């Protein structure tokens, strides 16, 4: 049984988007855990703030996901057209982020933010045409 190329392309697109969502949610969660960086910089200096960020486990996992996302994006672009993969990955990432922010970060994603997310998704798709 052969798998159609479209399945390959969409699996790659989905994989890249899921990595981006995990990465951004982990980074956001780590930064929420740390608290306002301006306050940390005021008390421990810029070096102290950088150390605080780089030693936060959630931030490091998130950054690793983003690095993996970057390389998997290169792979996705080698099997899919930029005009399909670019907006598809961006749109899926924005929707995925909003859903993940609601359920994992417990952000209050109200009607205003859903509307903004949908505008961004449609806007990104229109801009890429």
């Amino acid at each position, binding site marked *: 049984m052969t798998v159609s190329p479209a399945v390959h392309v969409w699996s790659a697109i989905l994989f890249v988007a899921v990595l981006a969502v995990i990465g951004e949610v982990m980074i956001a969660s780590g930064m929420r855990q740390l608290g306002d960086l301006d306050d940390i910089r005021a008390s421990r200096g810029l070096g102290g703030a950088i150390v605080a960020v780089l030693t936060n486990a959630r931030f490091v996992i998130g950054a690793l996901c983003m690095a993996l996302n970057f390389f998997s994006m290169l792979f996705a672009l080698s099997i899919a057209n930029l005009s399909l993969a670019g907006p598809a990955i961006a749109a899926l990432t924005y929707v995925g982020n909003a859903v993940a922010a609601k359920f994992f970060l417990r952000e209050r994603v109200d009607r205003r933010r859903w509307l903004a997310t949908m505008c*961004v998704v449609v806007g990104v798709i229109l*801009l*890429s045409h």
Partner: protein
Amino acid sequence: MKHVLKPSQYAILVAIMLSASVGDSFLKRGMDEVGAVNVHHLGLLWHALFNPYVDIGIVLLIIFFATYTTALSWADLTFVMPATAFGYVVIALMGRFWLHEQLSLSRWMGILLIVGAVGFVAGGPSRTEHPELDQMDAGAGR
């Protein structure tokens, strides 16, 4: 309650909007000069590091990551997201006014929608307050 942003925090959001898009444009310009990189020409990636456009692009993307991380320390992910999307608008407008490319009607609509999204979100609170969660995190993480 941190629902009103300080001027320095607005500056961070503007830096997010500009750094990624301008950085990408510099990288694109630099990589056009370096040439196509593939598995057989991986050495070109080393060569690319000596291209000034690529270097400026890398510095701008580091600035993007630093400002994005900073913004997430005081704002929600769903608040910062439209600001990152605004980078697409910056790239389209740079194409229009700097490279004199024609923008189609659908691209102008896309620009309007993303600008609208930034406006919707900016009108609301920047952070969901979770006193009980923040306390749990403070106990576990610091």
